[in-house]
């Protein structure tokens, strides 16, 4: 029986195994090393999680250049309309081949997104027709339904180069689609400015956060009523600023410098770093204000504490 032979073999083979007098110490050393590895492993796990997060931001739909706060794709609605919170789309064109256009930069310092939507994957090139020939490329490879999309962020300096005048000809840029079919190309402007936009020339602010970041007061005249609006207060501000406006008769409302509201749909939304509070007639009545009345308006900062805001007008 081979089973019996195995038993005999095993008994024979283990008979003269020498002992290891250092085993306890060696096992202890292994335990120590294992504990060190475990600690290192835990640290490594944290690093790997961080790396995975970083990797995720580089997956299709999360280009490296995408500014913080811009969500992953798709960036267009199913109807092909750009839809990125915090951005508005003043320029949208459909092209099927190389075409030349006019693109101008915003009058204030903004961030831009160059969005493309295409039928087949390809690289889109936006080329300035000036002598410097600045270019921007967009990889249109992020699948969204039956189309592909892509996005590239442009900072103000890059946009200045891309959108600079080309010379005598008013056309200053060329769109160069990288694959057949219809391409939708949109240049989006951020609703917020990079920092506080510069003050309007010749019109000093009614109240400047630079000198009174926590708030203050200013005087205004209640305008004649128009279309149900009793008072409009315009404010330049950076995201995160919130200003509560009140008069002796009560609170008029709060200016919330939220850049994600769409100025194309919301008349009071931020655009080019400026936002307006529309106070309806009913609220003006509630605080006992009448057209033509001079009143003191108190501003109290309730958002982030910063001097990057100013009351531009109240009319």
């Amino acid at each position: 029986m081979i089973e019996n032979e195995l038993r005999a073999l095993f008994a024979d083979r283990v008979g003269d195994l020498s002992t290891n007098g250092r085993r306890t110490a060696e096992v202890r050393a292994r335990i120590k090393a294992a504990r060190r590895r475990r600690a290192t492993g835990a640290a490594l796990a944290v690093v790997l999680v961080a790396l995975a997060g970083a990797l995720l931001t580089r997956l299709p739909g999360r280009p490296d250049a995408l500014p913080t706060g811009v969500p992953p794709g798709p960036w267009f609605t199913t109807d092909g309309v750009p839809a990125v919170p915090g951005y508005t789309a003043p320029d949208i064109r459909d092209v099927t081949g190389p075409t030349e256009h006019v693109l101008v930069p915003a009058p204030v310092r903004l961030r831009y997104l160059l969005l493309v939507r295409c039928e087949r994957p390809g690289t889109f090139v936006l080329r300035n027709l000036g002598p410097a020939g600045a270019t921007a490329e967009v990889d249109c490879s992020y699948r969204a339904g039956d189309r592909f999309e892509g996005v590239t962020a442009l900072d103000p300096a890059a946009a200045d180069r891309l959108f600079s005048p080309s010379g005598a000809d008013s056309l200053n840029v060329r769109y160069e689609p990288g694959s057949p079919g219809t391409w939708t190309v949109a240049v989006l402007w951020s609703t917020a400015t990079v920092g506080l936009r510069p003050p309007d020339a010749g019109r000093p602010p009614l109240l400047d956060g630079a000198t009174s970041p926590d708030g203050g007061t200013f005087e205004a005249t209640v305008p004649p009523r128009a279309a149900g609006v009793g008072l409009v207060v315009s404010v330049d501000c950076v995201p995160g600023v919130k200003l509560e406006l009140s008069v002796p008769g009560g609170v008029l409302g709060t200016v919330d410098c939220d850049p994600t509201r769409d100025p194309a749909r919301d008349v009071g939304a931020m655009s080019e770093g400026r936002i307006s509070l529309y106070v309806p007639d009913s609220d003006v009545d509630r605080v006992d204000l009448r057209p033509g009345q001079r009143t003191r308006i108190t501003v109290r900062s309730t958002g982030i504490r910063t001097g990057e805001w100013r009351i531009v007008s109240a009319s």
Partner: protein
Amino acid sequence: MADRGTFDEFVATRSQVLLRTAYLLTGERASAEDLLQTALAKSWFAWGRIDGAPEPYVRRVLATTYATWWRRRWRAEYPTGELPETPVPGDSSVEDRDALWRALGTLPRRQRAVIVLRYYEDLSEAQTAAALGVSVGTVKSQASRALAALRRDPDLTNSHGGGR
């Protein structure tokens, strides 16, 4: 539950017994010591949670580490042409055992583990299954295949002038 303070004592008093099992699993002294120390170090981390006597637990860690830790160097442990002990010419029992030892080295690791636990440790099929973390059915089939492979081994067949 085992007190961690008793670990060193366990190593000092019981590890030599476990070394024998490790040796039969790996077939080589240095690898056996490596396997044993690895199993002991692994067990230390669970020492405070071991319910009952620690030896069965350590034996299980030993067996499963051997059977599953394929990346370790003892994975490729196969008998060589030169045996540590040279058989005495004409001693047929020594030659038979050497042939069996070599044949044992050709078995897949899990089959070898089953054979060692069943015929050296004298564990039942259920105990072997528990030690390896497999089903009793697996133990039966692995043991059956291992014994069949040993019976078919040409060295053993030749030394016995035919099958067993």
